């Protein structure tokens, strides 16, 4: 059954996923092509100076990408489920309903995590050619909150899709907007270091909104 769910998710998301992968690859390529040219023309010292004296991160262009990818992936996965109330069929499959939803969300989060890890890994590898490990890890620690925003955007967008009434959808949207705003509140490197574990815990906890939406759908809540 797990394989069937996996195949269903693949059918729903493959084109969006392809688009996301291409955009990630293109943006990452562009970013590092740019940096390569800077190093060729001005020398690698300029990157050190920018990072140490001006708090530059060099990969700022990635900032909103994980969140946008998370939102698009959630739309690709859950809009087909709620169109014409197809979710009813999904929930009637011979498989525990909560586990079904959990597997679907886990697939989405896993896809995003692999994508983010690839981007972070490639970035760290390329940056390490020009700057020391202390500065590479500074970039990595700063970008963690951007990738967390990707998870949050995915989970909240999924919850918005699965929520059956507009009234509650607006409430979820308000919470999602406030939380995503919080995640992008500061552009200062490593500003979120100490707060990050709490933000991760809240993001994971926000997954309960998906089950909340499905439970209300099953109860027949509608506008």
């Amino acid at each position, binding site marked *: 059954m797990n394989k069937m769910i996996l195949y269903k998710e693949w059918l729903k998301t493959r084109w969006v996923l392809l688009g996301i992968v291409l955009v990630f690859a293109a943006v990452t390529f562009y970013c590092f092509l740019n940096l390569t040219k800077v190093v060729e023309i001005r020398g690698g010292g300029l990157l050190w100076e920018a990072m140490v004296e001006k708090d530059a991160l060099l990969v700022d262009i990635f900032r909103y990408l994980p969140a946008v990818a998370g939102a698009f992936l959630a739309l690709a996965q859950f809009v087909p489920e709620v169109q014409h109330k197809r979710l009813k069929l999904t929930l009637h499959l011979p498989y525990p309903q909560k586990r079904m939803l959990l597997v679907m969300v886990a697939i989405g989060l896993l896809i995003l995590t692999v994508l983010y890890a690839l981007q972070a890994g490639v970035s760290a590898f390329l940056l390490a050619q020009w700057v020391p490990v202390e500065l590479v890890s500074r970039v990595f620690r700063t970008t963690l909150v951007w990738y967390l925003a990707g998870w949050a955007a995915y989970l909240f967008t999924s919850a918005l899709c699965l929520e059956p009434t507009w009234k509650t959808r607006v*409430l979820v949207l308000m919470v999602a907007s406030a939380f995503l705003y919080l995640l992008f509140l500061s552009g200062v490197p490593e*500003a979120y270091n100490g707060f990050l574990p709490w933000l991760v815990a809240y993001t994971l906890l926000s997954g309960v909104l998906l089950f909340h939406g499905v*439970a209300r759908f099953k109860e027949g809540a509608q506008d």
Partner: protein
Amino acid sequence: MKRIGQIFLWVSLALAALWVIPSVVNLITLKGYSTPFTLYSCTVHDFTSLDRGEGSDFRFIDTKGNVYGDEAQPMFYASLLASKGALPDSIEGRKISLEEIERNKVIISTRPKDINKTSAPVYLLMESVPERLELQDPEDALISRKDGIYVYNMDENALLEGKTAQLRGALDSLGFAYPAKLFAGKPSHHKAYDEGYLVTDARDRVFQLKQVNGIIQVRAFPQADNLGVKYLNITEFENHATLGILVDADNKLYMLTPDGRVLPTGVTYIPEKEDFLVVGDLFYYTVKTSDNEGEHFWALRSSDFSPVATYDRAYPSDWSLPGIRFTSSLDNWVKLRF
């Protein structure tokens, strides 16, 4: 799961309201408040505050309410007074010249936000005696690690083993305890000269690291050994009067002189909470610290940094709607604050 979802949603909405509503209300009710520029006067021998009098003329008012013109601040307005032929020949019995006045003007300013942030332990290292006289952009950098301070060439991103060994030898010979705690320096060519970095070791002792003709020289300041220095700043003033500013564990401020003396100033300064401004001249340094309750001024004699006068100015009490917030004007971290 439905109940947990509902609780999560409503708790989240409550937190968002506690964050957003007070922020908006406080923004709407915010009233601007400014304080006049205040300096100690070498002619009036009191703190004088700049005030726009009737009409467009600026005037100075001392703490007793007496009103003065530009002559109350002949050091600050030296060029203006000289152009009018009104600059005195001598003050406090000392002959003065415009060139000497200009060379002794100093200003330094820091805010808690400059200190309260997570920084990378990487410090660009300038050459203090450049071949072409003018300071050049740094080529090397120091990286502070648990077991030592390493020197890297930035363009090559490569460890300079020779320089690192030389630095380690110099540090070890002075008993430097790793890891280094604080680094203070200004690796910019927009200054008259370079004094490298003031550094504290794991035992809070103060050292200077400075690259001279490619050799990193290390110097210890034994007079600061027992202060428990928690903050330092390098000055690099044009007049070479000081090397740095030190703040001890009790928030007492000291001036570190180029010959290694540590001079108490009587100033209390909490770097992580207070704004700090020093405006100095040939005769006096005016030190201002301020927090959200008020401003504290000290006048220090320029010759030995001994305090000669103090002045406090309280801010009017401020009302704000309590709530939660995630940022602060005092630091660069995002975290929950009540």
